[in-house]
């Protein structure tokens, strides 16, 4: 372990804790804790949404996917395009309406809270079902992030897996526990900036090192010409399914609670266009950086001396005469160790941890708000004081993090599959429901409830019990479509209440103000 790298890394972690401590003194009630009192400026909201969205996937997963199959694989270019389009549409269509509607609808501060208020559901069934979906998927989602973080600590610093896991969990829980939403968004803001800089610098330095773009293209073409063609799989059933599955990740955006809650926290609905511009630009530059890191990495690693790679702990294998990384997802780590000064390498590794931590903290916060607001306050103690609810949220953060960390103690847990599964779960359960809630006056409580259940169940069944042929399609597609159909059909069998219709009209009227 290089001491300089470690020191840089520790300074960064201490900086995050200081932010948490600072924000502790600015958190006075539950709205502050879970929504920052709706005070976010557009830049902070945009980068926070991006950073909490992208997780370790942007620095590990996407470069790894492009490294493995160039631009020709489903989970390279097509997934990036799908995500970029999905994120843009989410900002364009959902952000402003949701910001206004959540305020009109009894100042809702969580997604279950909004659904209950939107549909005037006095039975609390909608709130409880949606909070359960959140708790279930986020516990596993958070756990997968902890596995990724521990793997990074383990690979970079030589800690044991278990030690690495608990150190990472302790830091994230500490600043989420202390500062709540304000700490999370401000750390997200710094982490998002760091991630973007890292993703711009790394591929440029690597490209220079390998001798330019043409050299990279020729090397990769020699390995497999299909790696240079995004349409390589078109025409075959499996290839088409793969491309649709990759692009379909974009459907998930409309239902991710930890992302859309940033829209609700914006200072003003008028900030949306600015936030959309910042968020879209940040994301697309990041996606390009991640894709080119993987692409150039494939050419770079194949031409390096094995002894140089093994000196910094990078394991390679030889497949068909081509030298490849044993784990494609460490390509960003490999570049940071091979091409940069230890101080910069420490910062780049901190950027990876940033990506992972900024997602875990947001998910912990949404989960803890589900416990405090949607279970504790809504069902058990309606008269709970604001201070009491903040502390319930804080302890919920610890308990959920503990459960997630315990699940993560099994290093065999599949990170990427869990991420994809949870993404599909939220996208299919909440995505169509949120869209219809915002745009269709005719949706009823029963329609929304049936749609959420249909979407979630479809993802669980399709993802776990069906395999082969059409069932290789990413489960978010059938889940999303089925939720839409069920929501519309069930809603058409009933009628929304006049109060619901009045609130819908009030929201629409405020859109033009």
């Amino acid at each position: 372990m290089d001491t300089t790298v470690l020191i840089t890394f520790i300074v960064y972690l201490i900086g995050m804790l200081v932010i948490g401590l600072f924000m502790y003194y600015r958190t006075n009630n539950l709205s502050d804790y879970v929504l920052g009192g709706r005070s976010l400026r557009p830049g902070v909201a945009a980068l926070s949404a991006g950073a909490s969205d992208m997780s370790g996937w942007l620095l590990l997963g996407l470069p790894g996917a492009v490294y493995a199959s160039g631009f020709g694989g489903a989970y390279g270019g097509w997934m990036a395009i799908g995500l970029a389009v999905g994120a843009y549409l989410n900002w364009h269509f959902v952000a402003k309406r949701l910001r206004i509607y959540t305020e009109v609808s009894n100042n809702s501060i969580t997604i279950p809270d909004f659904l209950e208020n939107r549909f005037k559901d006095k039975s609390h069934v909608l709130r409880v079902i949606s909070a359960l979906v959140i708790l279930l998927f986020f516990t596993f989602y958070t756990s997968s992030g902890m596995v990724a973080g521990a793997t990074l600590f383990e690979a970079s610093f030589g800690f044991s897996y278990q030690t690495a896991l608990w150190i990472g969990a302790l830091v994230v829980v500490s600043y989420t526990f202390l500062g709540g939403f304000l700490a999370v968004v401000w750390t997200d803001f710094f982490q998002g900036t760091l991630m973007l800089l890292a993703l711009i610098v790394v591929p440029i330095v690597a490209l220079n090192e390998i001798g330019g773009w043409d050299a990279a293209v020729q090397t990769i073409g020699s390995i497999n010409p299909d790696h240079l063609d995004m349409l390589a799989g078109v025409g075959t059933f499996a290839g088409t399914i793969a491309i649709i599955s990759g692009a379909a990740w974009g459907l998930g955006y409309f239902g991710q609670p930890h992302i859309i809650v940033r829209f609700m926290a914006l200072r003003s609905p008028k900030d949306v266009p600015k936030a959309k511009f910042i968020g879209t630009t940040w994301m697309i530059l990041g996606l390009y950086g991640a894709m080119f890191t993987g692409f150039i990495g494939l050419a770079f690693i194949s031409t390096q001396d094995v002894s140089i790679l093994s000196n910094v702990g990078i394991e390679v294998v030889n497949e068909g005469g081509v030298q490849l990384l044993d784990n494609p997802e460490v390509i960003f780590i490999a570049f940071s160790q091979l091409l940069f000064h230890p101080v910069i390498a420490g910062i780049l590794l901190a950027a990876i941890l940033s990506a992972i931590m900024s997602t875990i903290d947001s998910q912990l916060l949404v989960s803890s708000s589900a416990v405090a607001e949607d279970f504790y306050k809504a069902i058990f103690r309606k008269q709970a004081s604001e201070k009491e609810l903040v502390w319930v949220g804080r302890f919920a953060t610890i308990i959920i993090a503990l459960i997630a960390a315990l699940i993560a103690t099994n290093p065999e847990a599949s990170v990427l599959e869990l991420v994809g599964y949870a993404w599909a779960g939220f996208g299919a359960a909440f995505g169509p429901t949120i869209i219809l809630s915002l745009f269709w006056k005719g949706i009823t409580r029963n329609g929304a409830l049936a749609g959420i259940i249909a979407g979630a169940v479809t993802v669980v069944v399709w993802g776990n019990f069906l395999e082969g042929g059409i069932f290789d399609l990413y489960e978010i597609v059938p889940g999303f479509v089925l939720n839409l159909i069920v929501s519309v059909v069930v809603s058409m069998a009933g009628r929304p209440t006049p109060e619901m219709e009045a609130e819908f009209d009030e929201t629409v009227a405020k859109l033009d103000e």
Partner: protein
Amino acid sequence: MISSLISQNPIWAESSKQEGVSIMEEFAVSGATWFWLLVPMPLLIILSVVSLFTNRGR
């Protein structure tokens, strides 16, 4: 360029010879790939800039 890259990796160079792959063969990123990589995503940035100014105008 490709010759120098391949010659840096003896295993690969050997493999290329065995498989009869010409080291002079030229490769290029396909036109469709360039289109999908460079059109949709930058277009989204342009759209967001347009809506930024449209809203300012209001």
